[in-house]
């Protein structure tokens, strides 16, 4: 299915949970926060929330800053 992640469109396998999607992208789960359609998906929900067609995700982490 088609989703948008960090501003870019991707085609990912159907039926993934949020955690499944993170692992599909090989993202280190420890240091990220996930927003789905402008709503935060708390870490404890990552196994319960399924990715839907046309979902828009922001996957963020910390970078150097002042």
């Amino acid at each position, binding site marked *: 299915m088609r989703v948008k*992640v*960090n*501003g870019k469109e991707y085609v990912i396998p159907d039926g993934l949970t949020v955690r499944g999607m993170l692992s599909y*992208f*090989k*993202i*280190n789960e*420890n*240091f*990220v*926060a*996930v*927003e789905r359609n*402008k709503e*935060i998906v*708390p*870490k404890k929900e990552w196994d319960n929330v399924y990715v839907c067609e046309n979902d828009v995700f*922001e*996957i*963020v*982490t*910390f*970078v*150097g*800053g*002042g």
Partner: protein
Amino acid sequence: MKDDLLVIGDKVFKSRLFVGTGKYATPELMLAAIEASGAEVVTVALRRMNIEGQQRTILDYLSQTRCTILPNTAGCYTAEEAIRTARLARELGLSNMIKLEVIGDAKTLFPDNEALLEAAKVLVKEGFIVLPYTNDDPVMAKKLEDIGCAAVMPLGAPIGSGLGIRNPYNIKIILETVKVPVIVDAGVGTASDASFAMELGCSGVLMNTGIAGAKDPVKMARAMKLAVEAGRLAYLAGRIPKKLYASASSPLDNLIE
């Protein structure tokens, strides 16, 4: 200085120097500078993860330190963006502190105080420990304190400018106006700027470019550590009043003839 602790919200710090983590050539250099600075609080920014490239984040490095993470909302131009960024930062699970920035102008990076206050109100209600980056404006500082900010962080000069404390009189008035810690954030260029801020009575100093942009960041980090401590000691010691004319340090009697 053992008992001279800095309390912000429910956090207690020995060091009064907060340092940023941006603009370093390598993460190793950043870590060395943080260590030399003695800082216990480091700021970070929130950005999209590069999901196609390497996955090592700054937190892989910062986890080697014992520093408290202070995420910022740098780059946000509206209250909504800043609130959204703060919530995501908290979701990362490392800190409920937020260095709240709502920028009003790209050239000066001066804050949009109206939006800052609006965002601060929401975030305080949501339980954040809010440290707002603000103008050196005592009226604004009071408003931010009144709505529950844990500290106020007036700029000394524009971010990254190295111009030092441009309006020490306003900083002094802010210090008389609010009870929460006042931390000078932005503008510090060299050690004397940091000392000066502390001598005025500020509770701390936050800097990034002043250290990261120096030719030798590690050396400058140590200089800033000493400067903050020296300035704090001088403030606590109570400086002599300034006078126009001399007053001899040596006895005036029993001179040889």
